[in-house]
């Protein structure tokens, strides 16, 4: 059985978010909730939830089309539809009695053999199925999503002793391939994996702050990036998730753990927290939390609470040498003598020891635990990877020196030389049996980082490398800072095209950085402009155009496989590849106007081609031009791969992969399929463009926006140059022009703009602030 249709019961934040992600995967989902008393519309709760999904930011839905796959209903009238549902997710209030009532109702109507799962985060599976029929228990498991379900990658799957093995397999495969989640198989223990360790971390971080007398700023300066946690640190994170959540989580953990569990011993009542909650200081959703914005007197002043007195004062920047020293690694941080170093050691020594004591109680191996913390709490490294970074032997030695307990697994790692080892080209982990085992990647998972463990690049320079990913397919990896493209990136792409043309079969462009590419290196352009090195800039434009053209017309398929941001030049690379396999979370756009220029590496030309009218669209020379003008002049960025198709950055035929770990394999498979189908490069297109009349028309529209104050003076300058390019320069709509004609116009427009004050100001502002200048 495969899951063709799903149902989510409980249309709250989690239920709605889970339904949205199922819909994002293209699977129809029924969303049910109760019928409110005296409701005229009996499905009003689920309908309201869908409305909220459409408005929420960040968006839980990847496209408006996905919203249409969610059908609202209620648990009184619509249970009959369960006969067609393969997977039912329960996401209602955390009360065993209510959940069990619901399960009985669902069990009476559900399809035989369908899977039922709970999104509980606090109730053991054993309690949930107590007293329910054996047939129900066989089909039941826990699927614990993290909030928000679209963006948090972790999905903990918990089976009980009665759960069918194939049900777990089925849900895990669906969660992985279709929902794009990292599956962690957790045991039926309190808090499962991520919350068990994450909540301990939060408790330890707060307790140590109080014990060592740090300020909130100091604590956050250490407990964020320096230890590899999200930059909010601990108090910023509490403000974000809501202070009022903490007493609930603490109570539930303390009640369900054994009395001798380190968490129970560590936790303590904290009167300040209770007082803050009582006073409405519940965090960002309330009046503020450990930090607040004081807007008295019309100014916005960021303030922090004094943990001793509970009063607020303007925030200060923490000055801790240890925070800077952390760049040298965790070991340097925890060895530092200042209070930041002491703080880091105090928290990490407890946290990592605790984690090591919990395997195999909460999960079978260390890999699952590391994955859970990386994907559920956004840690850069999992606890065992952190220990390896410090050196397991060193870590154990220091624990011993400080008379702290050393769990058995940690001891064996110290002896063996760490939790992870590369052996025979594969990554291995230390098992509870004391032996190393290969880290298994699922079928269809191919990671560049795995290949890089042992392989040497075919080609390499400072900005990019070319790797052999097998079966005659090469992978071009960008690896400059933020993957900004420069002459080296382009140079390596050119070399890669030559190499693959001679010696291999196909090329994939992919990397595992946060962003595929944020675009051309603006810093270089600004530097060259400041010293009037115009030929250098023009050369870079020409080089880019030539390489992109060579890529587009290569005799073999070039498949771009972007994830994260693909902006400006990164977008142009995607646009001019033979095909795209995009991660669902890809954010594509031509944002050049933000730095005062126009797309210069073929982006304008491609958007004209992409916007050629379909059979149902209005004809004539203007609609494609106007559409491309709108997309580029407003620097529209698609907020998902699905939206990128709507904006025409992706073709209808381009593929979307939900799970990032599967992206490279999918892209490679696509390239091989294109080869098998007898790949032929595209024929050069000819364009019929309006010429000066088109430019006049576009400028009239921009004039209107300028009057309205929506277009600022330099917007008008940039738009004028863009209009010149998109309307085709001096052509006439009775004639056709080549792609080269348009790229030549791109180059001329770029060079004209880069010599204006307004554009240089925009570039400088972007480099110094990271934000576009409005001038």
């Amino acid at each position: 059985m495969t899951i063709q249709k799903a149902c989510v019961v409980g249309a709250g934040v989690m239920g709605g978010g889970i339904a949205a992600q199922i819909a994002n995967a293209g699977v129809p989902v029924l969303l049910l909730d109760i019928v409110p008393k005296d409701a005229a519309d009996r499905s009003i709760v689920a309908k309201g939830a869908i409305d909220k999904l459409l408005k929420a930011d960040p968006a839980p839905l990847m496209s408006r089309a996905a919203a249409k796959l969610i059908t609202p209903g209620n648990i009184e009238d619509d249970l009959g539809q369960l006969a067609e549902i393969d997977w039912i997710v329960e996401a209602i209030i955390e009360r065993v009695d209510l959940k069990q009532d619901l399960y009985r109702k669902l069990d009476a109507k559900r399809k035989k053999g369908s899977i039922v799962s709970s999104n509980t985060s606090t109730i053991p599976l054993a309690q949930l199925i107590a007293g329910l029929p054996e047939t129900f228990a066989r089909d039941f498991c826990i699927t614990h999503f993290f909030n928000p379900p679209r963006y948090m990658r972790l999905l903990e799957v918990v089976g009980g002793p009665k759960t069918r093995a194939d049900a777990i397999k089925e849900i895990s495969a669906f969660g992985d391939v279709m929902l794009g989640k990292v599956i962690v198989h957790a045991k039926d223990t309190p808090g499962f994996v991520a919350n068990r360790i994450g909540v301990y971390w939060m408790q330890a971080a707060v307790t140590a702050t109080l014990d060592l007398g740090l300020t909130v700023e100091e604590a956050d300066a250490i407990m964020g990036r320096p230890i590899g946690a999200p930059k909010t640190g601990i108090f910023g994170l509490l403000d974000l998730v809501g202070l009022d959540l903490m007493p609930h989580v603490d109570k539930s953990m303390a009640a369900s753990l054994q009395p001798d569990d380190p968490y129970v011993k560590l936790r303590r009542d904290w009167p300040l927290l209770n007082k803050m909650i009582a006073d409405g200081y519940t965090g960002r959703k309330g009046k503020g939390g450990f930090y607040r914005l004081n807007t008295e007197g019309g100014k916005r002043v960021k303030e922090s609470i004094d943990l001793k007195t509970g009063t607020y004062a303007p925030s200060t920047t923490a000055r801790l040498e240890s925070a800077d020293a952390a760049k040298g690694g965790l070991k340097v941080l925890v060895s530092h003598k200042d209070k930041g170093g002491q703080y880091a050691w105090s928290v990490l020594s407890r946290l990592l020891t605790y984690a090591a004591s919990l395997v195999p109680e909460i999960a079978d191996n260390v890999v699952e635990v590391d994955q859970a913390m990386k994907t559920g709490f956004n840690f850069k490294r999992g606890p065992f990877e952190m220990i390896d970074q410090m050196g397991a032997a060193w870590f154990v030695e220091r624990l011993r020196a400080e008379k702290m307990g050393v769990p058995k697994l940690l001891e064996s790692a110290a002896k063996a030389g760490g939790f992870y080892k590369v052996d025979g080209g594969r990554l291995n982990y230390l098992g509870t049996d004391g032996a190393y085992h290969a880290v298994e990647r699922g079928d269809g998972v191919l990671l560049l980082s795995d290949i890089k463990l042992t392989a040497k690049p075919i080609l390499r320079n400072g900005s990019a490398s070319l790797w052999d990913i097998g079966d005659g397919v090469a992978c071009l990896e960008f690896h400059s800072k933020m993957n900004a493209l420069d002459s080296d990136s382009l140079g390596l792409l050119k070399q890669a095209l030559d190499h693959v043309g001679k010696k291999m079969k196909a090329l994939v462009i992919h990397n595992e950085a946060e962003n595929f590419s944020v675009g051309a290196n603006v810093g270089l352009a600004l530097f060259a402009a400041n010293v009037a090195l115009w030929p250098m800039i023009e050369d870079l434009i020409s080089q880019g155009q030539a390489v992109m053209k060579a890529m587009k017309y290569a005799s073999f398929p070039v498949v771009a496989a972007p994830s994260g941001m693909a902006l400006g030049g990164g977008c142009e690379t995607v646009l001019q590849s033979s095909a795209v396999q995009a991660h669902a979370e890809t954010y594509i756009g031509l944002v050049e106007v933000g730095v005062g220029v126009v797309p210069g590496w073929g982006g304008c030309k491609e958007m004209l081609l992409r916007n050629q009218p379909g059979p149902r669209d209005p004809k004539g020379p203007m609609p494609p031009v106007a559409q491309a003008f709108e997309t580029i002049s407003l620097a529209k960025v698609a907020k998902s791969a699905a939206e990128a198709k709507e904006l025409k950055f992706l073709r209808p035929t381009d593929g979307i992969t939900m799970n990032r770990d599967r992206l490279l394999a999918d892209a490679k498979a696509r390239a091989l399929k294109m080869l098998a189908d007898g790949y032929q490069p595209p024929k050069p297109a000819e364009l019929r463009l309006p010429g000066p009349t088109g430019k006049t028309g576009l400028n009239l529209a921009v004039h209107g926006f300028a009057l309205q104050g929506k277009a600022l003076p330099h917007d008008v300058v940039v738009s004028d140059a863009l209009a010149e390019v998109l309307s085709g320069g001096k052509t006439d709509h009775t004639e056709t022009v080549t792609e080269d004609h348009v790229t030549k116009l791109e180059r001329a427009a770029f060079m004209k703009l880069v010599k204006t004050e307004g554009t240089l100001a925009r570039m400088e502002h972007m480099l110094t602030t990271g934000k576009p200048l409005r001038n």
Partner: protein
Amino acid sequence: MSKAVIAGYVRSPFHFAGKGALTKVRPDDLSATVIKGLLEKTGVKPEDIEDLVLGCAFPEGEQGLNVARLIGMIVGLPQTVAGATINRFCGSSMQAIHLAAGAIAMGAGQAFICAGIESMTRVPMMGFNPMPNPALAEKVKAAYMSMGETAENVAKKYKISRKEQEEFAVRSHRLATAARQAGKFTDEIIPIPAGKENVVSDGCIREETSMEALAGLKPAFDEKGSVTAGTSSPLTDGASACLVTSEDYAKANGLKVLARIKSSAVVGCAPEIMGIGPVAATERALKRAGLTIKDIDIIELNEAFSSQAIACMRDLKIDLEKTNLDGGAIALGHPLGATGARITGKAAALLKRESKQFALATQCIGGGQGIATILEAA
């Protein structure tokens, strides 16, 4: 020689373009339904009709080709009834009436359908392929100026405050609301089938609008200006139609005559203040009729924008009490090609309803023109 008379007036409900009830209705179908309604209501013999003259401001796409002829086929008019599509932008369907009156005067026909259509949803303002002449755009800056900008120019030139404009807009909505509540539109509106729905009532009137609500709007066209969406007529989908015949034909066939057409005029003006067009056109039409503005009892002055309507009233010394008795385009909507036949037909109908002697229908036209028609009780 027989005078031309207006012997019937109908229209569709008017709805917001892009979001109203008529967005899915093709303009040719919309117009055909309205014309069928006109034929039923007047009882005119279709075979007697010389021509279907249809005004449309953006005659392309679904309003393209010679859509008047095609609409005749949809209606099922006899093949002998000719069809012509006329474009004078906002004045298009008033021009259709003038053409019929002229033809009647020269004995070139005795009955005409003078209709107007605009689906501003389905054919955008400026059309699908705006292709202005670059040299002209350079030479005459205002040749392609947006209507909103001209409204701002008029507001500035005539020093019309935002508050005055808003008072005028509120009045329009108030009168339209009252007229609808009193059932004063039921006579003129032809229900339009739209999918499963039957659209019977106007969609643009904001019954609840107030000075406070309008004061909260941002300027729509110039961030430093005074014209807002609330003091502009909305983009609208709608159709209208009048039956214009010779007075002799109407008598002989027992048609119900609403008014006689006494005179008409068109005249150009500066494009950057096109909203002032009605002033010269009205003066010219009055002169031809041998009347002064004081003689006029009923006035339909198109409300493209509050600012231009107020400016015209000021220059022409028009009495507000006589003007737009059932509300104007700010409340009802302004489907460009359909407005001329609506306000001329409305003026004729009001003349009869209020038992008055003379009426004026006049409107401004993008590009810098005015058009006016003087009617008298038949």
